[in-house]
């Protein structure tokens, strides 16, 4: 029996998340792991936008910022539970993505890149300038999610880092499952069609503007939830989460691993999240290395790491 690529991807992902802790020598590794999953979630959203629909956004950190600050602000000002605040953040991101996406998705290539970038910069600017609300560049505290205490009450006692490893890992698997389902759905086919050729897609009856917007809104929700998870996990948030560099990192992770494949993109997230941790010894060289990796992969492995490697292995087998 041959497993479908969807089942394979989910199995590999779940297995790696479940088995990896066996080899973790310290709680620090759980922390890095959960960061990878948080980034992986945002990147999975970008797979829908970049990999499926072929659109680009250099402003998705803006949505991560909205999700993160929703978790910080809504509990204080609206008295919402942090979990509901994350949902509110996702809804807000979806609404803003809908409003912003309608006009800007008419643009293509570099124009779309720069307008989305402008949007991201606007969000981070508001977050750092409205200091009386957001604490400005110094950031603000985020309340405890409280799920760990609930688990403890029913007999599952996890340390803080273990809990966030497991919880964000679970959310990531869920996100990946949804994205993979989407790939094979009529919507997924429409997205891939307009990626191939907008004109051709239109002639067979695909409402191109509508489906681009669907991809944009979905990826915004992923980014928002990823931002919420980061905020709840760190219990602290600064406007950097919405910054330009974060947007660039997200897109780089996606394209590095392979924008067309959920597993590849998550691999990209894993590499780029781990790299700075490994390179702390060479902190001076961090930017140099990041820039070099970005250029080399794009020049020599245009489809990204995972698709290029699997193709090479398959090519050898046949």
């Amino acid at each position, binding site marked *: 029996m041959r497993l479908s690529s969807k089942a394979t991807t989910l199995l590999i992902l779940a297995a790696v998340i479940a088995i990896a802790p066996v080899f973790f020598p310290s709680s620090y590794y759980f922390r890095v792991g959960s960061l990878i999953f948080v980034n992986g979630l945002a990147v999975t959203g970008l797979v829908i936008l*970049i990999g499926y629909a072929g659109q*680009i956004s*250099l402003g998705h950190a803006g949505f991560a910022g909205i999700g993160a600050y929703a978790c910080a602000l809504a509990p204080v000002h609206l008295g919402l539970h942090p979990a509901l605040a994350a949902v509110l953040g996702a809804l807000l991101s979806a609404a803003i993505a809908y409003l912003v996406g309608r*006009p*800007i998705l*008419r*643009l293509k*290539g*570099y*124009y779309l*890149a*720069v*307008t989305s*970038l*402008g*949007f991201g*910069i*606007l969000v981070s*600017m508001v977050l750092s*300038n409205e200091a009386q609300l957001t604490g400005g560049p110094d950031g603000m505290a985020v309340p405890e999610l409280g799920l760990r205490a609930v688990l403890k009450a029913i007999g599952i006692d996890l340390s803080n880092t273990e809990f966030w490893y497991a919880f964000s890992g679970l959310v990531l698997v869920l996100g990946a499952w949804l994205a993979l389902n989407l790939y094979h759905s009529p919507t997924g086919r429409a997205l891939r069609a307009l990626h191939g*050729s907008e*004109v*051709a897609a239109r002639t067979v009856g695909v409402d191109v503007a509508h489906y681009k917007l669907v991809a944009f809104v979905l990826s915004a929700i992923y980014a928002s939830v990823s931002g919420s998870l980061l905020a709840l996990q760190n219990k602290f948030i600064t406007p950097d989460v919405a910054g*330009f560099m974060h947007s*660039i990192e997200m*897109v*780089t992770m996606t*394209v590095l691993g392979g*924008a067309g494949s959920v597993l590849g993109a998550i691999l990209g997230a894993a590499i780029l999240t781990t790299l700075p941790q490994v390179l702390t010894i060479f902190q*001076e*060289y*961090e*930017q*140099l*290395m*990041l*820039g*070099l*990796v*970005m*250029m080399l992969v*794009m*020049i020599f492995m*245009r489809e990204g790491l995972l698709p290029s490697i699997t193709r090479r292995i398959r090519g050898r087998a046949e």
Partner: protein
Amino acid sequence: MPELLQFLLSGITVGAVYALVALGFTIIYNASDVVNFAQGEFVMLGGMITFFAHAAGLPLPLAALIAIIVTAAIGVALNKLAIEPARGAPVVSLIIITIGASIFIRGATQLVFDKQLHRFPAFSGDQPILIGGATILPQSLWVIAGALAVFVCLWLFFTRTLIGRAVLATANNRVAAQLVGINTKYVMTLSFAMSAAIGALAGVLVTPITLTSYDVGLALALKGFAAAMLGGMGNPKGALVGGLLLGVLEAMTAGYISSQYKDAAAFVVILAVLFAMPQGLFGRKSTDRV
């Protein structure tokens, strides 16, 4: 009134820098269809190399010349090592490559030089000139004159010289240009050298006013890009007007609305322009081939 004039003058100064960055974008975009996100790093390199050459004891003009030549060489290296091998890659890949190059150059500069803010003396002193109640620094006049001079030189180059026309031909249709015997690889190299040199010149001119450090490039690249889009991508006249317009707009926002949101104003206007006329102020309508 003097207030308005003051904002206008500072806006034009900043705008002239944006115009130079935008002109650099335009040259590379025309020759290769690549938007070079590392354009701001050329400005940074121009300022940083001049400072360190000057600090090492060289006279300022010589230091500036060295900075421009070295930056042009780095521009050529960028083309040969990163852009040419990626010929035909999708837009997303090219964006990542040039952003990667920008981060790489920033990281290298921080290693080779340092992370401090630097400034070298203005060319004609720091005594402000009074104009109708407002003041302008002599260095600002250098910046504005520099932008205009570069624009005129480019205009002459593209309309009056054979090689300039070859660049335009390559921009228009690469294959056709090759067919009539234009060495398009040479055109690409030349475009990157020119673009980097113009960026470095902007850095040399503006550093006495704004100071420089290893991380000033990114913001400049974004503004310059915004200016180029405002004017219409690929159009030198658009780059000049777009740059000046953006600079004035920022200065007005900072003066009359909020200095915190001056960067936002630029992007809001660009969004508005793109929605109203997606090709920019001077761009031509284009149709897609199926």
